[in-house]
């Protein structure tokens, strides 16, 4: 690929006491791709994300995100990347605009610039009509989309999404996936998506990585993994079959 790496991890390890959460992770994410980070609950996906964000210090190993070391240079990283945690929270007694404005101010975006960006990003996530309502009255799907809007006001190069569709109804899930897809295609934002909802990942991701018990057991485009694990001749494969195969082996 001609694109350069936006995330590079080398021998990244995180231990909590004696428990190893992430074991010797080597990974490269290219600019502009949608990367699906798969694995069962408690496999170390969120810990990996937190290390990329500089919110947790790795026990050993190196990591560079958009060219900076997140532990040494957290501000550069946090300014340029968006992070949507699982079940993102908002200040429920403020409306959507106030919530976004607070985040914009924390990012030192002047009010003059941020007010335009807030409108724009609310439009992207289709929440412009609900802007005056208190966020406490929002449905789960709306909150999740507001989370995306909040991430967008930074105009990030890279977005980390932690289980963005969990708990959404089918319609909400579809809107979310379409939204993620369009962000990648239209704004050329790199997406790092952590999930265990495999059919959804298959729909939108260019490449996937499978992490089991802190180990990255597979990484590559879905077709490639299918070839490797299921045999070339198989025409219809699902990511689930590949995943289960890896899961049983681990």
């Amino acid at each position: 690929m001609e694109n350069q790496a936006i995330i590079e991890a080398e021998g990244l390890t995180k231990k909590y006491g004696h428990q190893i959460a992430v074991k010797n992770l080597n990974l490269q994410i290219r600019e502009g791709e949608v990367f699906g980070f798969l694995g069962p609950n408690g496999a170390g996906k969120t810990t990996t994300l937190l290390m990329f964000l500089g919110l947790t210090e790795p026990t050993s190993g190196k990591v560079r995100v958009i060219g900076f070391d997140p532990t040494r240079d957290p501000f550069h990283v946090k300014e340029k990347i968006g992070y949507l945690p699982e079940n993102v929270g908002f200040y429920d007694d403020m409306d959507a605009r106030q919530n976004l404005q607070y985040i914009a101010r924390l990012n030192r975006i002047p009010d003059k610039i941020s007010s335009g960006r807030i409108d724009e990003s609310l439009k992207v996530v289709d929440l412009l009509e609900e802007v005056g309502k208190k966020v406490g009255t929002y449905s789960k799907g709306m909150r999740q989309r507001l989370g995306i809007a909040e991430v967008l006001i930074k105009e990030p190069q890279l977005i980390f999404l932690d289980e963005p569709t969990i708990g959404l109804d089918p319609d909400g899930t579809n809107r979310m996936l379409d939204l993620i897809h369009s962000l990648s295609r239209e704004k050329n934002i790199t997406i790092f998506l952590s999930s265990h909802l495999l059919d959804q990942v298959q729909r939108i991701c260019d490449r996937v990585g499978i992490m089991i018990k802190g180990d990255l057991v597979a990484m590559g485009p879905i077709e490639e993994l299918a070839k490797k694990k299921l045999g070339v001749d198989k025409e219809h494969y699902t990511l689930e079959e590949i995943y289960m195969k890896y899961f049983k082996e681990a």
Partner: protein
Amino acid sequence: MRGIFTIFRKEMEDHFSSIRFLLISALIVMVGVIIASMVGMGIQEESKGMAKPTFLFLWLFTSTGKLFSFVQFIGFFGPLIGIFLGFDSINRERVSRTLSKLLSQPIYRDAVINAKFLAGAAVIAIVLVAIVLIISGLGIRLIGVVPGSEEVLRLAIYLIASILYISFWLGISILFSVIFRSTATSALASLAVWIFFSFFISLGAGFLADAMAPIGQSGAGMDPTLVVKHEQVQRTISLLSPMTLYSDATTTILDPMRKTTQALVLMGPLERLSLSRFQSPLPLLQSLFIVTPHLVSLVAITFLCFGICYLVFMRQEIRTV
């Protein structure tokens, strides 16, 4: 400090728009006005046709009137203000899952806790200054005495001590909000500390003093050294309480007639007589000297409390955040 001003501003907005703040200030203003008008009217009656004694104005704050004085009221209920303002400051954000989002913005991690503490302290300062001004205004109308410069200075020192004292309790409640994940637990823990220091420490002090220097009930034929020792033990233990520190310091600074922060024991008729010969007010600087150790201790425990809170917050793993 990156982000501290933005968070400070939001916290202030939150405080001022909260029902909690409204309730606290309504309660304080109500009680303050009632006490001040009772005391003011009492002074008006008593001092009719007499020359006004010096430092009459400060009586507004220290005179007990019918129930308790304003100074006693703040000493006792002030901690509740601090606790109300801080008990859910960190764990509320944790419960609503905004804390991890906040920390993933380009701000220093300590900006969150510093801004929350400063915003709480600023609210405390605003409330206290406002109520003291209200009482002063009421007092000027009722007793017709304008405070002199020394009285104003004494009030200013009183205000600073009160802000520190209530900020200490704010620190305690923020500390518990960092440690405990549930807001109910942190509120109860802060209240428990408050109850301990306001009621039980004096009980404990009395008990320990009785144990270490037993004096009889009767008072006849007592060994004076034992009585002094009893008193010393009791004083030392109750000085562990921020409440004692504060009330000793403020009553002394607001009452120039007080020569010491300690209560006098064994006031026989002759001693009383000899003391009354020296009944002249203490200069401000002398009063200040007497309470300096108390004020320094108040500053120290406030900073210590906030320091612990800061350390615990900074060392918490983000996963548990």
